[in-house]
């Protein structure tokens, strides 16, 4: 233990200067140190927290750095090999998607269901954009997005099975899938899409799934929705 001759305070830290006034400190005599310890008790030092902070920041920056370099390389290759077709834009979207994915899952602290929901919605948007960019063949709305909805149903099912005691936490996610299916079906009637196969499968699967949860888990479902929509 030390003492600051300026502030007259006793110091637990093993430093050369006073943390308050930066004055060079004097070491306490053994007898004096003993007296201080009897009077105030033992101190409790802190760990080196700086190191950890730097590591996390560094890791995320490193990933971003690598992604930027990779994309720059891809743009260069794209330009040199197939200047007519801008495929590097797609890889750019994919890399940005990957990085955002990482940030949402590492940084964002919302519930698991919300993260999954956002991820599914975001995937749909990215698919739609890629379709539009590569010639607007309509495969995204017709096949890929309904496929994502079915995948979403599957994810909800797995989540409910894994967390059986809290299955109702994911019911809102299921309702979201239901709304999306109806939306896709609606696109047929306003003639945006022409094939009815996958949209109907989507509505049927999600609808039956929803009906089953309402029938067999009415009470828990009601409570969950009651809480979620409580005014």
């Amino acid at each position, binding site marked *: 233990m030390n003492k600051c001759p300026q502030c007259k305070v006793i110091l637990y830290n093993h430093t050369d200067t006073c943390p308050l006034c930066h004055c060079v400190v004097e070491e306490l005599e053994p007898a004096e140190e003993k007296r201080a310890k009897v009077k105030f008790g033992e101190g*409790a030092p802190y*760990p080196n927290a700086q190191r950890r902070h730097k590591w996390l920041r560094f890791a995320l920056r490193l990933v971003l750095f690598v992604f930027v370099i990779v994309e720059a390389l891809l743009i260069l290759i794209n330009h040199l090999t197939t200047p007519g077709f801008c495929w590097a834009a797609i890889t750019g979207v994919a890399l940005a998607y990957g990085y955002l994915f990482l940030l949402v899952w590492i940084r964002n602290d919302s519930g698991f269901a919300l993260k999954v929901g956002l991820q599914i919605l975001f995937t749909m948007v990215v698919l739609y954009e890629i379709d539009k960019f590569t010639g607007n063949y309509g495969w995204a709305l017709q096949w890929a997005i309904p496929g994502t909805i079915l995948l979403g149903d599957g994810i909800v099912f797995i989540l409910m099975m894994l967390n059986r005691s809290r299955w109702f936490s994911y019911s809102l996610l299921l309702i979201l899938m239901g709304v999306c299916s109806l939306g896709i079906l609606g696109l047929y009637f306003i003639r945006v899409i022409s094939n009815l196969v996958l949209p109907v499968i989507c509505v049927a699967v999600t609808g039956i799934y929803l009906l089953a949860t309402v029938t067999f888990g009415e009470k828990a479902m009601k409570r969950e929705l009651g809480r979620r*929509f409580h*005014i």
Partner: protein
Amino acid sequence: MSSTYRICATLKEPVRRELLQEAEEKVLSQFETFRMRLRMGFFWYYFEENDRKAPEVQEESDYPGAYINKSRNNQYMFRVTYYRNRINLEVFHALTDGFGGFVFLKELVYQYLRLSHPEELAGEKDKLSTGIFLDPEDSYLKNFKKGADHSKAYGSRKAVVLKGEMLPKGEVSVLHGYFKIDELKAAAKAHGATINQYLVGNFIYAMYKEYLKGAPSKLPISCCVPVDLRKMYDSHTMKNFFVIVSAKFQPTKEDYSRDEVLDFVIATLKEQTTKENLETILSYNVSNEQNKFLRPIPIFIKNIAIRKVYNSSADTATATMTNVGNVELREPYQKYVEHFYAMLAMSKGQNMKGAICSYNGTLIVTFTSCLAERSIQKRFFQSITADGVEVAVETNEYTEEQPAEQPVKGKRKKKHEQVSTV
């Protein structure tokens, strides 16, 4: 968005992780108010019982008040860490206030000690202490009076903001000051104040001298002082139940003496903590939540609105000084515990906060700050030592020279012989 605080117990022996984990699991299973998770509805956030496994006890590796990532904490709103002899409990303030936090921490310490000293504490029943209350009532709602006049509850006047060179983002400087209660009491009495008023007064004086350099100011220095309402309303709730009053000091002329500032602060604190005023603030807090026009607004819009209000009100207070009171342990456990202390996490607009906690005759004032400078703390401790009170100081600065876990054989190296290994 909710702020956190940390409360700690330092033992007289190194903490063992596995025992602390076991103690946490045992205590948590009996504490309903801590077994909660926060969920987002369409209009409100709400609490739901959390039946997941107890959060993992980890060795302390971050700054106090670092964000608790709930999705990596089994959705729990508190975290238990340890470092050498110290047990830390970090709690989201939305869960409970310091009173509730200490009820939990004390039971955690009792349980830990029963596990680590089974022979010596064999006579102790292996369960929660009798006589503690685990009441989950919302004492705000229960005790607020409808129709009370609360137009003047919170002044939204701006206050001085402490600026200066900041520490890197995420870093916090912690500084503990250890006092003996009887010395402090004598010094406070000489100024006609309670210990709390005396410490808040000296804090404001330190800000006035070091930040305003003793000059007049258009804005007041305003220090938030939370007041626990449990005694006043005879409540034993484990949830939040406090209001915030503020001690304000606005220098209108040059060079006030410390006695003048102290007298001023003592007077405003006395005036603020009357029963009527506390009741007014309580009703104001509750009536906002009860507003039937605000209730049906979707939560994401509320969040934006709250953030706006929060940001605009962030500069109505300069700092905070809270007193969590005296911690008392049951007799057989006392000899294993060295200290208790508390500290507050930083929040927008307030770059320095103080927390007071006492145990076994020693009172510890802990300043947390994100300012690189420590001149305000320096003035605070210098003023108190000038009153004849001895103080010992400890910071969270990491120094390589800390005594090793295993005592090194042979002569201890002298300071100037030490070579940094960084």
